[in-house]
């Protein structure tokens, strides 16, 4: 335990215990049951390379405090970019107005909360000079160009982020977190006999600069080139329902859209999710266990604390086929009378927290990848993805396959491209008939959007087979 006075973030934000205590008292002055302050400071550096030169560099500084007053499931929210005490108090009084009474809340003494660090790095991005980043971006370009003579254009993007948060709650606890993130993406356009194809790949993790070894950079570039070159041979698959094999890794987008969003407790608390009435029901075969995990070291979805100051966790959503838990923020945990799951997240101090995913993945199943492919007489295997979406109530979800393959007579045959898949969450879960022992988390730069707020996430699956139920957006 430590005190706010001696914490370096108090200096960073230019605040002390009296300002924080006063702000919380103001936020609760109209009768709120709970209030919290979310101080955030973010520095970003981005670079973009096109036509061989780094054509643009960008930096950003964003800081402020978000103040929330809660009464039952009602929320008042306001923020201030200025961290002057008076500006903070004005925001606190604005947030307080969700409640309509009066209440005198005496200031409390604050206790610091210690948490484990799942993304300790040697040097924060704040301490890295621009001249250390530039050669990494250049090297990605050089490596990529050398990989295939048909490559016409290479663009490389870089983004790193150094984020510091300080969260103070009206129950007298403060928590802090320093969250690194670094993203490298590589896009390629190639030309073969006058036909052009483009594709790309990315890696995004809570890492420092040491992660970006030549080997790790080369892997991203290779993926970008391979995914582009195969498009020259790829066709659109036929249209209609057919078995879909999900290749290990990024296919976890199916879990994210088909199950994860529907298990965010705010939708269930309001009764608007198709899963609202399915808790403790058997929704999938025995071998299906799905978790949402904030504890994967250096993963894009890792969190030491969520954005309400709760320690994060690994939450089992589906265990041996049975629906076990929703993802909770403070409000929903109180509503359901359960422990929070550390899932209260927000895009920035300008936004209210709500239940969100972190790393969503399925554990290994009992089959092998070969068995799974052999089991398909006619279908597709999905390999890389760009985006997905879900309708929470109907349960209908989609994901867009950029690269995949046809499976004919139990064998992988021709490459396919640009296919939207649409299905229904509970239906797809029931139809998961096989899963292999090769589960892997994808480390692409996935960002999940909900109510206009984007947060970093990751996802993974073992190779798995969804029997004929989803519709493949091909062309007959």
């Amino acid at each position: 335990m430590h005190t706010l006075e001696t914490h370096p973030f108090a200096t960073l934000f230019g605040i002390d215990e009296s300002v924080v205590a006063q702000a919380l008292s103001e936020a609760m002055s109209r009768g709120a049951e709970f209030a919290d302050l979310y101080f955030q400071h973010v520095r970003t550096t981005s670079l973009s390379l096109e036509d061989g030169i780094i054509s643009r560099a960008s930096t950003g500084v964003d800081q402020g405090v978000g103040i929330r007053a809660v009464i039952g499931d009602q929320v008042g929210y306001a923020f201030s970019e200025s961290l002057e005490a008076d500006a903070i108090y004005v925001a606190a009084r604005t947030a307080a107005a969700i409640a309509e009474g009066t209440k005198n809340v005496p200031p409390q003494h604050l206790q610091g909360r210690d948490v484990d660090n799942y993304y300790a790095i040697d040097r924060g991005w704040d301490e890295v000079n621009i001249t250390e980043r530039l050669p990494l971006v250049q090297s990605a370009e050089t490596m990529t160009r050398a990989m295939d003579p048909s490559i016409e254009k290479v663009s490389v993007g870089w983004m790193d982020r150094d984020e510091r948060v300080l969260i103070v709650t009206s129950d007298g606890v403060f928590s802090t977190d320093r969250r690194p993130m670094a993203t490298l993406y590589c896009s390629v356009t190639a030309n073969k006999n006058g036909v052009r194809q483009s594709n790309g790949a990315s890696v995004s993790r809570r890492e420092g600069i040491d992660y970006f070894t030549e080997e790790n950079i080369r892997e991203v570039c290779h993926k970008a080139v391979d995914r582009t070159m195969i498009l020259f041979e790829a066709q659109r698959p036929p249209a209609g329902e057919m078995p879909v094999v999900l290749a290990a890794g990024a296919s976890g987008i199916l879990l994210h859209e088909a199950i994860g969003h529907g298990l965010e407790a705010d939708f269930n608390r309001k009764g608007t999710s198709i899963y609202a009435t399915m808790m403790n029901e058997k929704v999938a075969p025995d071998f299906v266990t799905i978790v949402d995990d904030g504890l994967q070291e250096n993963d894009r979805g890792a969190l030491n604390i969520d954005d309400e100051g709760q320690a994060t966790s690994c939450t089992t959503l589906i265990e041996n086929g049975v629906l076990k838990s929703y993802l909770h923020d403070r409000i929903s945990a109180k509503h359901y009378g359960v422990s929070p799951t550390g899932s209260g997240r927000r895009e920035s101090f300008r936004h209210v927290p709500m239940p969100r995913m972190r790393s969503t993945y399925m554990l290994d199943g009992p089959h092998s990848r070969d068995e799974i492919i052999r089991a398909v007489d006619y279908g597709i295997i999905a390999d890389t993805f760009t985006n997905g979406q879900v309708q929470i109530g109907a349960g209908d979800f989609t994901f867009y396959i950029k690269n995949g393959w046809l499976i004919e007579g139990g064998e992988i045959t021709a490459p396919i491209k640009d296919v939207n898949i649409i299905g229904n969450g509970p239906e797809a879960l029931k139809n998961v008939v096989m899963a292999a022992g090769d589960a892997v988390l994808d480390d692409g730069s996935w960002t999940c959007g909900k109510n206009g707020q984007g947060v970093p996430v990751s996802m993974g699956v073992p190779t798995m087979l969804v029997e004929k139920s989803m519709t493949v957006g091909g062309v007959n």
Partner: protein
Amino acid sequence: MERELLQQAEQAVEQARRAGANNAIARVRDENSTEYTYRDGNIEQVQQSATRGLSIQLYVNGRYSTHQTSDLRAASVARFIEDAVALTQHLAEDPHRIIPDSALYANRPDTDLQSDDALVRDLPREACIEWLKKMDAVTHTDDRVVSATADVYYGWNTSARVSSNGFSGIQNGTSIGYGASVTLKEGEHGRPEDHRYVRAHHLSDLPDPETVAREGLDRAISRLGSEKAPSGRATMVVDPEAGGRLIGAIWGALQAHSIQQNRSFLADKKDAQIASSLLTVTDDPLMVRGLASRHYDGEGISAKRRCVVDQGVLQMYYVDTYYGRKLGWEPTTGTSSNLVFAPGDKDLNGLIAEIKDGFHVTSWLGGNADTTTGDFSYGFRGFRIANGRKMGAVSEMNIAGNFLDLLQNLVAVGNDPNVYSSLQSPTLVFDNVAFSGK
């Protein structure tokens, strides 16, 4: 306020010059908004925001960078700009990065775009609560409703832009929007849902809240009993509210950036027949009360109306200074504004009445397109059309194809533009579209 923002921008440009930048462009924006959410008889959330930020573009010895900060304390800004100029010195020289030609700033229009509504700036809380209660009441008139949420959003913003080569401008506007989303119960677990949301600069341009909420409820009710139809080729009627997504994806291929990076299926197509002759689209930044109206674009280039597609023939690309120089083209404007379609003579219902076999697409679900090839595949929700009549709701279906084929198969354009969007798509009807279902 306007004076203060201009001064902040001028000062930032001056500081950048002093720190060693040859040229600089600064923009300071100030935004205010309030949003109320009301659910099932209670206020659920009130969010208020007042935000100000500075962004600056730097041209330093042939090098270029951009920077943003929300820490506007004088000392912080001064150090931020000094650091930014110093960082820029480390980058490689890029001969194509020059500040926009000041000749493009000339003849800036000064027509009244009516982007600002004093009523919105002075909207009392009581009025918002009243609308929310009315919308909430309307959406709870059906006993299948599980939950309904009504929202009211309003705000205003001002931005000042100053460049070291003589540009100085202020733009401001208000916005207001409201609507409702409704979830119904169907069967044991089903929760079909839909919504209706409208927005404008002026309050008087919006339908009344009860009408909007009624449409939200009716849409949700119309989703009951939705089914997956068989795969096959059929006519597609794209609702005005859904047209924007398709048009936006196609317009991405008109950007000089896409063309220069060899990622545009519309490269080398200027003066070519890219669509059926029914498609005529004007980019109109000067439309009175238009949601994307402006006197100048993001580079300070003076706004003017431009024909983008004339009877199916492509007339222009969106060319900014940087990619224009790389391509050897004169800049037009880098970003689209309001897109106005030459209308046909029927509305959605009139067009549906002419279709024997097809689907009415009301909204998209997921999907994407490849700008390089024009290949697309989208999920959608909507209705079956048979013999000129709208039939049952469909769901869990996709369309797929290539935009070059799709545009040639445009067989009708409605007279019913979506005025609550800057992409004012009317109903669009396409023949021979590949649908996938069961």
